[in-house]
């Protein structure tokens, strides 16, 4: 307990940075992921191909490798200075977007085909079929798996600790300079992650109950 209380400053900064990474990456991952997911169900073959290659390639790339490339490779390209946290956010967004894309795509597939057919039969154009009939139903189906993707993202932010970002995963390295026992520090970090994940899981369960569709 003393380890936590005496070093509260570092713990607070660490988890604050973790949450910043999490929120910003989640925001961009949702946008990129939705676009790529939509590309994968679009009628344009080239878009489908690009979406498929992007998703399959990045999903089979370790996140550590992506961060490695951005943290060590990017500065060599002389494209202007970008801070390590920003590079970590880029890597996290690119990586998580592939999972979001898959969730979005499977969300469309959960809506029964008859819904789209009925919407078109009553004369709705494509835009209205999507916005009034398909999207509202797909959205509900997508919420629980989307929350799981976000939970995975939260845990993945720790990898940034290996690439000069002062977030929760890096608390140990900072505190070992103050002579704190590593095991206690790490157990506290693990504990806070369990709490954060539990909170997200509760939110997930709540949203799932709230927006459940009875079929």
């Amino acid at each position: 307990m003393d380890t936590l209380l005496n070093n509260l400053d570092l713990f607070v900064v660490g988890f604050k940075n973790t949450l910043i990474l999490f929120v910003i990456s989640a925001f961009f991952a949702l946008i990129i992921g939705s676009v790529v997911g939509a590309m994968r169900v679009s009628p344009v073959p080239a878009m489908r191909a690009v979406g498929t290659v992007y998703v399959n390639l990045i999903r089979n790339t370790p996140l550590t490798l992506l961060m490695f490339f951005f943290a060590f490779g990017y500065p060599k390209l002389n494209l202007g200075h970008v801070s390590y946290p920003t590079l970590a956010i880029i890597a996290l967004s690119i990586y998580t977007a592939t999972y979001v894309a898959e969730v979005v795509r499977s969300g469309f597939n959960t809506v029964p085909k008859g819904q789209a057919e009925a919407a078109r039969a009553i004369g709705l154009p494509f835009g209205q079929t999507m916005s009034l009939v398909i999207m509202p139903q797909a959205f509900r189906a997508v919420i629980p798996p989307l929350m799981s993707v976000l939970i995975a993202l939260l845990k993945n932010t720790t990898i940034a600790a290996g690439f000069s970002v002062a977030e929760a995963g890096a608390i140990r390295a900072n505190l070992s300079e103050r002579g704190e026992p590593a095991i206690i520090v790490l157990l506290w970090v693990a504990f806070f992650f369990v709490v954060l994940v539990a909170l997200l899981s509760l939110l997930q369960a709540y949203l799932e109950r709230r927006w459940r569709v009875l079929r």
Partner: protein
Amino acid sequence: MSDALYDVPGPRANARNRILSVITILVVAAILAFIIVRFAQTGQFSAQKWQIFTFPLVWENVAQATGATLGAFALAGVLSLALGLILSVGRLSEHAWVRIPVTLFIELFRAIPVLILMMIMYYGLPPLGVDFVTPFVAVVTGLTLYNGSVLAEVFRSGVESLPTGQREAAYAIGLRKSGVLTLILYPQAIRAMMPVIISQLVVVLKDTALGFIVTFHELLYLAKFYGSQFTYDAPIIPATLVFGAIYVVLCLILSGFAKWVEVRLRRGPGAPKGADIARTRLEAADGVAARVLD
């Protein structure tokens, strides 16, 4: 689904789609061209930077690092499967005093980031007098605890997706609890869940890269080492390209295998009905399975 959203394209829609296709290709080509031009301008393709890959000794080290990665993956994979099986039996137990602790264990290790688990092993234990923790041990333990817990849930949902008649019939012909599980339920559950199980193994393979952060001498570690050789003008980008390609190819092969198994299962006779649904739900629920979907 997508075929119900729009009509079969007519001449006008076809023309529009063609234009959109061209635009997409141009945008992607522009992005790739920018990256390659940038690489060329900053001298990433210079002979000096790639010279390091002309030495046989370097490639011997690459083979060794690949071996280290695959070794950690193989051991962690086998141990995760074993742990997953044991935990899932506990999770399905009828006795609350077994089920509840096992459930807590699974939930706990699913919630802690793998990297933190590795750090606990590597940085946390040695000061307490535990002296057998090498980076390899830390990586394998971290991967096993996490993926074992995830696989336990996979096995469990596989068992629960089976029709209740299977269990009832097994009891009716006089099998004991152990017989029902090992002879009737698990063989079917494992078969149904095979694609998810293999995808989880892809996650194990991908996550061995985390070993880089706890100084495990695997592919990325070597990439960093060669990438900072100033005699060869610090070829970090060539090194990342070469070592990254090895990683990605290994993962793609395993993912392709998962896809192949899935296609075979779907085509094969006697695949349990509920399995497909349970699989999709689980995959969506976990968000980590790196499966190649069409």
